[in-house]
């Protein structure tokens, strides 16, 4: 299934990309699994998305926990903790 991934702020800069379309391999069905999938790319991906770093996620523009399910066509965003206001 195909999904869209967005990256913001320091994550976007570190990864050098703001968005990508991705054909998800079978078995990657949650936000947490997608993060692991991206970490497995190694290099900058492993650093930027590392488990000891605070990375937040949203599914279809709604804050989401790692257990949140992903389905075809979803827009998944990863970003650092927010600092507005």
């Amino acid at each position, binding site marked *: 299934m195909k999904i869209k991934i967005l990256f913001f*702020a*320091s994550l976007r800069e570190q990864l050098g990309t703001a968005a990508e379309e991705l054909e998800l391999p079978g078995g990657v069905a949650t936000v947490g699994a997608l993060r692991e999938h991206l970490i497995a790319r190694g290099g900058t991906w492993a650093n930027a998305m590392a488990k000891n770093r605070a990375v937040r996620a*949203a599914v279809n523009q709604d*804050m989401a926990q790692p257990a949140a399910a992903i389905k075809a066509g979803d827009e998944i965003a990863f*970003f650092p903790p927010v600092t*507005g206001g």
Partner: protein
Amino acid sequence: MKVSVQREDFDLGAEVAAISGKSTIGAVASFVGLVRDVRMTLEHYPGMTESAIAKIVEEARGRWQVMDCTVIHRHGALEPNEQIVMVAVASAHRGDAFAACEFIMDYLKTRAPFWKKEERAGGAAWVEARAADDEAAERWK
């Protein structure tokens, strides 16, 4: 209820006047957040930002009597002393207006997808999230 995410500055007086018209409104509480002594750029997540703020306003309406409300948050490049954000809440009485205004700001700080990048002497740096902001939002639970 009005939520706006915009580059342009806003006029607090005009925004307060716009939600003060009804004779049943007895109190309007407002807050303005300003840039301190550093230039910055504010990034946000278009689409999610507006809906996240709208959800926070809805939650406030479920807790207090909110007769009208305006939230404006700017993005893009901002200079020291410029206005960043405003919240104004109209209610029959001050208690609800004060509480809802503070609640909306506390939740906005931890739930609305904005990120500040400051231009410091050593170069530009992303602002780290503060534990104090999480604690401020937690106390409303």
